[in-house]
């Protein structure tokens, strides 16, 4: 009996510790920084967390001590109206010193926060790196890579590739309502406001995949408005960019050709663009290289054949309220369409 009563609290404590540790690491975590901006923010966060924890523990100890002291006093004793001058002076000193310490701590926070804020500022050298235009739509991200060479400009969606160790300048726009761009492993939040262009720079020092999410409530599917940042070595990034700037590959097999016909003769063509074909609408994500993306539906589903077919047929079951309507295609047409879209590498 004694054994069990001891093991349960121990189990709970272990679980609690495990739960705390579980949030370390991960691809969407502000205290697992992968770049200078996020490192700055997480340093500030740790400073505030540790100091506030110490203060909290000390205050709790003081409260408990005072409670204990009070219970030891006799209840029926007449309260002393005039405390002795000695103890009064001691108490005053305690209050003054604690107030001073509080003010000092707040000033330390102020200076730390100010210097962190300054280091996040946009510097002129940052403007010479890679430049990306990010537009928030309900509920997906439009990504446009700018370049001085017009043939290097291209548009993609929901998946941003960046080279490791290079500052990337984002100019943020809102197409409909206010969204917010937040990739916790790389930087803080910045809003995408309609009619205004905000800028933020990020840099990834470690290659990897980082998940970002809209951080400003923007409507029904705000929770499923995510994006991936893929940080990769410069050569890999160059190869990726080289591929993305190309027009879509021509439909090769019969099934792909049929799929292309389905694309042009149904609702798809009203909203989506495929570069190199007559499809040029910009309401939905650009699908020129949709087969090369890892996820579909703004990082909602893995880009597999099944998911793609289900998404086209009835995306409303995955993301109710999203702007893509249900499509009543025959099974053969749907298969061909998926075949074609998957071939767009």
């Amino acid at each position: 009996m004694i054994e069990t009563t001891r093991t349960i609290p121990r189990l709970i404590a272990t679980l609690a510790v495990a739960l705390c540790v579980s949030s370390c690491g991960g691809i969407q975590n502000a205290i697992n920084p992968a770049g200078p901006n996020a490192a700055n923010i997480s340093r500030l966060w740790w400073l505030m967390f540790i100091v506030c924890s110490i203060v909290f523990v000390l205050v709790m100890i003081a409260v408990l001590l005072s409670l204990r002291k009070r219970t030891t006093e006799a209840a029926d004793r007449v309260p002393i109206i005039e405390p002795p001058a000695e103890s009064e002076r001691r108490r005053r000193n305690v209050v003054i010193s604690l107030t001073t310490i509080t003010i000092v701590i707040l000033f330390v926070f102020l200076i730390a926060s100010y210097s962190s804020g300054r280091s996040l500022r946009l510097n002129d050298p940052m403007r010479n790196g890679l430049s990306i235009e990010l537009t928030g739509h309900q509920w997906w991200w439009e990504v446009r890579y700018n370049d001085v060479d017009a043939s290097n400009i291209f548009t993609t969606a929901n998946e941003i590739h960046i080279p490791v160790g290079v500052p990337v300048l984002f100019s943020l726009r809102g197409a409909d309502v206010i969204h917010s761009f937040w990739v916790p492993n790389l930087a803080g939040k910045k809003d995408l406001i309609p009619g205004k262009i905000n800028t933020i720079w990020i840099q990834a020092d470690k290659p990897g995949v980082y998940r970002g999410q809209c951080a400003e409530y923007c409507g029904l599917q705000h929770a499923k408005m995510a994006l991936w940042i893929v940080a990769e070595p410069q050569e890999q990034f160059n190869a990726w960019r080289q591929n993305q700037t190309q027009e879509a590959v021509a439909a090769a097999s019969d099934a792909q050709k049929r799929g292309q016909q389905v694309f042009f003769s149904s609702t798809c063509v009203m909203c989506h663009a495929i570069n190199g074909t007559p499809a040029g609408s910009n309401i939905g994500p650009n699908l020129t290289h949709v087969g090369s993306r890892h996820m579909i539906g703004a990082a909602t589903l893995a880009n597999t054949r099944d998911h793609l077919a289900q998404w086209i047929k009835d995306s409303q079951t995955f993301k109710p309220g999203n702007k893509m309507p249900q499509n009543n295609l025959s099974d053969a047409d749907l298969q061909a369409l998926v075949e074609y879209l998957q071939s767009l590498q």
Partner: protein
Amino acid sequence: MLEELSVFKRISRAAAQRRDACRAPGSVSLRLSAAPLRRCVSLLLCLLCFSACKREQRQFTTPPATFKSYDVTMSDIRPGVGGLPMPVQNPADQHAFDTNEGKRLFTQYNCSGCHFNGGGGIGPPLMDEKWIYGDRPENIYSTIVEGRPNGMPSFRQKIPDGQVQQLVAYVRSMSGQLRKDVAPTRNDSMNARRSEQRTERKTPQQTTAPPQ
């Protein structure tokens, strides 16, 4: 401390005395008449809150087709027996969400490319009282789906049925045919004209297409 306690006691005693005074025989009738009234009002207020629930439900799945383009007639002359088909009600006419979606689609599908925000340019204006191919929802539906001579393309299979219904509702709101609480309000951007909600209702008139 002790003094505070005694003050508290005095206050509570005074409150008790006041309570007793209320129970005096003279005040009984007053209490009886006031309490049910107050209860009634609060109950009504609570019910009022619930009355707004489910006033308008958003439907994201495509609704069953209401219109069939072959039902549409442009004149009273009809072959065979039987009268004219019953006029069809557009379900999107009843929902503010649908008319606003229609407004969004009107811009996104580039209807303004020809109809110029309803004012007309390459295509005929939509905010006036003149209708070449009929003003009924089913007429507008078939105009969008079938297309019309001299420029209006057919959007059959290009725009899903539900979205056509939303567009039909919005097109009708431009000349003030819809209820005020359903028609779209002002734009997010600058307004070139009064919002659909503030547009005066215009009596539709049949007209012929301008000579080309």
